[in-house]
């Protein structure tokens, strides 16, 4: 019971702040909302009995990625940025696209086996780090390495783009 109350608190906050991210005019306020959203996600991860993922969420997204966001956004001319339209030109096709996307998501969720997750997972909060680590380095070693390779490629690309002589 208590768990459900907490879930709804976190979920409503998460959705609300996510909506705020796209609807707020001031980019810095949007970043704050995004931070709130990420923190709620972390809380939801804890409720799913995976504190490790929650902490990583806070560590990586809130602690590092968003700081970089802020770093860039703080340089913007806020008054001007606030006036700019998100999508220039006609809006109709955008709305149509979004509607299609929403429909697709609803369909996917209703068809998938995601509903099984709502059953309370094993009520255990310890030992999860070890399990995650083991799974990552045995069963999922190939995806893990592929992902790291992709990240490395992206990193190198950024460095190449950033070098002055090659531009």
């Amino acid at each position, binding site marked *: 019971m208590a768990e459900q109350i907490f879930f709804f608190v976190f979920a409503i906050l998460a959705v609300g702040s996510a909506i705020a991210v796209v609807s707020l005019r001031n980019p810095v306020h949007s970043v704050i909302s995004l931070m709130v959203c990420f923190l709620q996600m972390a809380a939801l991860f804890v409720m799913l009995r995976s504190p490790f993922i929650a902490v990583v969420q806070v*560590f990586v997204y809130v602690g590092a990625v968003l700081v970089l966001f802020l770093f860039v956004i703080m*340089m913007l001319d806020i008054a001007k940025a606030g006036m700019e339209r998100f999508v220039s030109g006609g809006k109709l096709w955008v709305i149509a696209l979004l509607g299609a996307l929403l429909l697709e998501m609803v369909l996917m969720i209703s068809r998938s086996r995601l509903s099984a997750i709502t059953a309370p997972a094993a009520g255990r909060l310890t030992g999860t780090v070890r399990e995650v680590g083991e799974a990552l380095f045995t069963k999922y070693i190939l995806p893990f390495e592929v992902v790291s390779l992709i990240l490395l490629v992206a990193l190198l690309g950024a460095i190449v783009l950033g070098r002055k002589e090659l531009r």
Partner: protein
Amino acid sequence: MIELLLIGIKVVVVTLIVFALPLPLTYIERKVAGHIQVRLGPYRVGPHGILQPFADMVKLMFKEDIIPAKADPWLFRIAPVIAMVPAFVVFATIPFGEKVTLPILNYEVNLYISNMDTGILYILAIAGLSVYGIILGGWASNSKYPLLGGLRSSAQMISYELALSFACIGVVMIVNSLSLVDIVKAQSGWHWNILYQPVGFVIFFIAGLAEINRIPFDLPEDEGTLGAGYHAEYSSMRFAFFMLTEYVAMVSMSILIVLLFLGGWDGPAFLPGIVWFLLKVAMLIYIIIWTRFTYPRYRYDQLMSIGWKILLPLSLANILITGLVII
């Protein structure tokens, strides 16, 4: 039921202690500063100026709370709180000792609020959030120097958090656990991690100084060039919140160093563990204050090159070598 009650009591006690800590710390800092500079430090309020922090507190409370006209009022108000909350939340998983038996009730109490499986990661992640208060405070002030302070703070945090976390990984590899209680237990009997991870210790200490914005890395509030930096526009209690955050961060960083590298509450048996723990933490706090009044501030480009070109490669090499030794 009694468990829940105990957790509640522990939370309240720890919060109160942490809230009150900056009072003696400001006094000690000013006294140490005074004596290092061959002065006396605060002397007039109470014997040897011992009541000075209370006088300061009262003064700060009754000062006018100024919000600049062009500031973002909402963010300006909330930024000190954003800075302060993570500094306190960190203490949720910091252990101060192992079990003690309460003298009268004869009930065993753990000297930590929770022993999280992901303890050290949690602390690093949450402690990193404090920087938002600084960045947003700097931005919301809508003035040049605070903005520069905020920018510096964000770049500094990104650069040094990496080295800080990598320095922890060496310890985690040796101990095989992320839980702080396990890390301390593994060091009992003089197997302190500083002996096995001297490089990690040095990196952690330096990066930690940068993380909590202390001299020689206090560029976000550089008095010399930024005129108090990110909190230049703050006054009254909001300014006090920033100060509070800074001192609490100093305490938690010292505690973290003690737990990770200096054996936590491990020490010769003639004193109880908690006393050893507090002694070590006090010593580290003294060292941090001592360095503050010994060294000048680094230049910003020097700060960046220390972070990226020295500490980060060193910490990576440290992880590599630790891994090789363990295998």
